[in-house]
């Protein structure tokens, strides 16, 4: 498996920069050419395709159910948005769901970032017996989808009487091979050996090195990984759906999915719930979009 993951080139971040300096007039398909009008047209189409379902969620949420059962479908906002959001908030138990999801996603993201950074540091910068074999196992575990493990986990939850309790969602979400891999790749190039050496000469223990050298150096990658993991846990569906209930102790996804399952579902209410559940993450992406994009691309090339 690792073989397929070996990076196309090793040190990209440093190599790409000088490229900009060298320019020749020859026609190239590479990064220098300015995009033509057709490219912008295609991009515009993709932009509309990406955003339309989101915008339409808000449009549908701002209408009432009768209007959604008419043709042609509404393409502009009506006046009910805030009423619907309020009702959805109450009906879907969204207040509690938001609190729960923040706890779950926050705990999980922070833990993953911490554990991945120390493990990534060990894999990137320390020498120990079995390092390569263990790294291979880490990469191998990425290929095993967590969904296949849900039945014994469900039995455990039943045995411990943990259904509808947050720890049953948090604990299994703390494993992230991707996180370990991501931090390893980052620290390989971002943390010079000399700094670690220097700290060692000063008599720093491994923990002190981690605390005073690795964490400061890894901060940008830790932030990106934290956001990615937060998004992933926030959006997690299957497992929370199995062990949490909408009226008990739901996460946002469980609460939102529950909105659609009534006998005569109010479609605009469902859309209002979906909108509320998505807004926080869209906000995060609007603010930190550049960093998240950078993080994904960085993880990608080197992965």
């Amino acid at each position, binding site marked *: 498996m690792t073989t*397929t993951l070996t990076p196309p080139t090793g040190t990209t971040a440093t190599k790409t920069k000088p490229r900009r300096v060298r320019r020749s007039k020859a026609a190239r398909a590479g990064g220098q050419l300015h995009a033509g009008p057709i490219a912008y047209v295609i991009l515009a189409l993709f932009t509309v395709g990406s955003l339309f379902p989101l915008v339409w969620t808000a449009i549908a949420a701002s209408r009432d159910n009768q209007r959604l059962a008419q043709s042609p479908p509404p393409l502009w906002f009506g006046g009910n948005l805030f009423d619907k959001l309020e009702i959805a908030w109450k009906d879907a138990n969204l207040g509690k769901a938001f609190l729960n999801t923040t706890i779950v996603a926050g705990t999980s993201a922070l833990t993953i970032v911490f554990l991945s950074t120390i493990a990534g540091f060990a894999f990137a910068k320390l020498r120990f017996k079995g390092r390569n074999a263990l790294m291979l196992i880490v990469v191998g575990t990425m290929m095993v989808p967590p969904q296949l493990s849900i039945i014994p986990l469900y039995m455990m939850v039943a045995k411990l009487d943990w259904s509808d309790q947050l720890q049953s969602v948090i604990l299994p979400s703390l494993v992230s091979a991707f996180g370990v891999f991501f931090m390893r790749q980052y620290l390989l190039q971002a943390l010079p050996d000399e700094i670690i050496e220097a700290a060692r000469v000063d008599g720093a223990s491994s923990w002190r090195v981690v605390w005073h050298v690795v964490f400061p150096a890894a901060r940008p990658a830790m932030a990106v990984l934290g956001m990615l993991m937060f998004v992933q846990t926030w*959006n997690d569906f299957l497992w929370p759906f199995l062990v949490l209930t909408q009226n008990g102790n739901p996460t946002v996804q469980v609460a939102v999915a529950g909105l659609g399952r009534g006998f005569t579902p109010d479609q605009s209410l469902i859309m209002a719930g979906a909108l509320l559940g998505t807004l926080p993450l869209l906000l995060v992406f609007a603010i930190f979009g550049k960093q998240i994009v950078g993080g994904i691309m960085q993880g990608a090339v080197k992965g």
Partner: protein
Amino acid sequence: MATRHDIAAPPAKEGGAAPGRAPADALSAEAAKKRARLSRRWQRDIRWSPYAFVSPFFLLFLAFGLFPLIYTAWASLHTVELTAPTDMEWAGLRNYTRIFDDEFFWNAAKNTLTIGIISTVPQLLMAMGLAHILNYKLRGSTFYRVVMLAPYATSIAAASLVFVLLFGRDYGVINWVLDMVGIDKIDWQNDKWPSQFAVSSIIIWRWTGYNALIYLAAMQAIPQDLYESAALDGANRWQQFIHVTLPSLRPTILFTVVVSTIGASQVFGEPLLFDANKGASGGSQHQFQTLGLYLYEQGWVNQHLGRASAIAWVMFLILIVIGIVNSVISRRLRASS
């Protein structure tokens, strides 16, 4: 590196400062002992802390990944009811014969395959095209990249619920647009292929931008000289794309194919929420029931956790086959290049 630390480490075992500095008084013996102790601790630290750093991941993986996976195989040989998940009764291979005799299992397997193809192939092709465009010099390139990632920020639940409405037969936006260009109403819920396409489109929508960014990152890592020499050889842009870009992206393409294939074999939330009957059957005729959904139906609707375990284990075996096929292909590719 560890060896270099050892050299750089403070006083070695015999404990002492530099030979030139003579031990002046009684204090130095104590100091030497102290240094020796420190040094032993140092050695231990260098030796064992790497394991301490990587062990939390492995312990968590053992507890919540590997052990449950193996226990699933054990559970699949038992009759286990959802209502009493801790009572297990030996059943041998009966769970497996039951699911292999069930036409809906084969139906779900076929649907998983077709939905996997319908969702993965266009998704990766579009991602490739999009990445190629994003690789040009663009005004507002960050804006486009973030926008392409917005669907990725949307949860499966929210996306599926919106797409159900967009694909509505009578009042959906998509049929309305099709109607304007003269295409008759399509029943996106009940007809087999339209429904599979609709479910796939949720997956395509959520993941195209993400994959485009991965391709884009790989494209930016291609050395510019390759394009320059291709241009000197008279290759036009399309030929450069075919002969320079694609071969350089091969490992990345393989990577995205593997990841998408694994994802496609696990599809669950989209077909669950796309079902108008609010059930786990994947449509009235099971027309878009995937293996993931079938597992859920057997385990949590029909309450046979043992049978669900058998399905999970079959899905795992399918993944192993995919993994082997993939590694064979990648080895071939590397041998040929």
